[in-house]
């Protein structure tokens, strides 16, 4: 089925798969907007649905047949707070968040909560709106408070410019962010200024674990390229489903649903997956460091 990247086509495809093809479960969708269109249909027909990478918290709130194998947006705020406190040993962190984006606001809120609980202090909170190009006033205000690091949970387009302007104003502390940074454009726009910054992500192909390396080798053999995070999470969604079918011993919808919900400490490519009562995956995130020649694996943060 191809939903052409449109939410309404996603809903049509889901209906067709369930009523005509009588599928036992749905794996999908990648994007939150399209998962949100499909989920009510899966819920209505009581067909379990597992999304590989829809991180919007609302997706699994639709009903008890909807699951995901990725963490939700705000979790990354917690990950980066732990990283800042434990690895960077930062005491005093400034926040620069995008007020126009739920994603950025959620990450920043969770970061502040966790960081304060761990004994850190928030030096100053500043904000911008996505689409802005001038951040010098915010950076000047942040610089005056002399923070150890700055948490910028935005998207790569703004972050690249923020990093440049921070360097211009000699704010020489690490910047931190979430998976919204994950794009080659980050280094293209930010150039040398983003080097030395950190962000959280779902997976890294540098992970040395045997199962990860085997997946990468198999994927390369089949498609000729190194799998990105989305490919790995799609694979994991299927693994979780297969594992649940094995444990349930049946594909009857209620039993299968319960088996998926009971997934615990399942070793997948993107980490150990446990599903919580909200049907969201509780799993580790990786922290990557931006370097001249790409994003380098730094550490894994457990939930």
């Amino acid at each position, binding site marked *: 089925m191809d939903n052409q990247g449109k939410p309404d086509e996603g809903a049509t495809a889901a209906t067709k798969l369930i009523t005509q093809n009588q599928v036992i479960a749905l794996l999908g969708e990648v994007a939150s907007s399209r998962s949100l269109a499909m989920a009510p249909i899966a819920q209505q027909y009581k067909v379990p649905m597992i999304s590989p990478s829809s991180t919007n918290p609302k997706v699994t709130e639709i009903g008890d047949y909807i699951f995901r194998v990725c963490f939700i947006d705000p979790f990354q705020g917690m990950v980066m707070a732990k990283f800042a406190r434990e690895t960077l040993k930062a005491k005093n962190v400034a926040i620069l968040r995008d007020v126009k984006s739920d994603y950025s606001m959620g990450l920043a809120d969770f970061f502040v909560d966790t960081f304060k609980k761990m004994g850190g202090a928030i030096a100053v909170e500043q904000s911008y709106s996505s*689409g802005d*190009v*001038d951040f010098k*006033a915010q950076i000047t*205000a942040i610089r*005056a408070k002399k923070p150890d690091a700055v948490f910028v949970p935005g998207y790569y387009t703004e972050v690249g410019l923020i990093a440049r302007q921070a360097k211009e*104003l000699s704010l020489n502390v690490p910047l931190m962010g979430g998976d919204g940074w994950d794009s080659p*454009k980050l280094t293209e726009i930010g150039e040398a200024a983003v080097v030395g910054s950190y962000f959280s992500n779902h997976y890294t192909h540098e992970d040395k674990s045997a199962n990860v390396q085997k997946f990468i080798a198999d994927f390369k053999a089949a498609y000729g390229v190194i799998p990105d995070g989305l490919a790995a999470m799609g694979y994991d969604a299927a693994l979780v489903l297969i594992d649940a079918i094995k444990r349930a011993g049946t594909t009857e919808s209620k039993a299968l649903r319960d088996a998926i919900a009971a997934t615990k400490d399942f070793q997948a490519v993107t980490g150990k997956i446990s599903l919580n009562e909200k049907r969201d995956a509780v799993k580790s995130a990786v922290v990557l460091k931006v370097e001249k020649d790409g994003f380098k694996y730094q550490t894994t943060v457990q939930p």
Partner: protein
Amino acid sequence: MLEFIQHLVNGLSLGSIYALIALGYTMVFGILQLINFAHGEVYMIGAFIGYYFARWIGFNQDPSLWALLSTLSVSMIGCALIGFLIERLAYRPLRKSPRINILITAVGVSLFLQFSGQLVFGSDPKFFPQVFQPSGDWSIGELKINPLQVSVFVISLVLMAILQFVIFRTRLGRAMRAVSFSHDHASLMGIPTNKIISATFMLGSALAGAGGVLVGLVYPKIEPLMGTMPGLKAFVAAVLGGIGNVTGAVVGALFLGLAESLVVGYWAPTFRDALAFAILILVLLFKPTGLFGTNRTEKV
């Protein structure tokens, strides 16, 4: 104190770019009483002309002042042409229509250019090649002044000075001023009104094109919708200075740049975009002619 001075430096550099765009608004308004809402899009196209030209020549490998000047000139010439076409195709046929028709057309041209831009250039942001990279950085203690910002500021001032010279010291400028007083009287005196109006559009658009390239240098992320907000803010700056007045546009733009930096730095960053429009409302309520608006003799 130091933080305050840094905010002033940031604000002036932002304001000088608003000024380049505001000048085009104010010139066109002065001569046609038309608010050319497509002006912000001309600025966007200027940035993209600079982007494609610089990449085509390969200036990003070999940044120099010469590279910057030639990118600027190409972009200014390209935008002058675009400005000419916009006036010729969209506004001139409506010259005798009620003003509201032309205003709505201006909004239409603006949307047309924004979305054609998305079609032609693609909607993902592009990285503007760094055609000019002055070395070193000037700092007085903690106060950082980026030489690039200073260069942009100086180039803006030079362009504005040239404009001032054209308007007040040349035959073209005299004709423009005459047309701005009265189209009919000017044409009775033998001034080719249509040509002068075209020239005004071309001059204003060239400045917007220069603004696009300079912004690309300082904030190297360009996209087809980048013209909307700066365009509206430059419009506010022009109204603040007294629309139709060249000096007023520059003063208004610098004021707006400073005000934005201070509001973001000391009060509420989210209020940044609202500030410009709050100023617009206040000006319209209390001094609709703007700061310099009463001085009719300087009108272009």
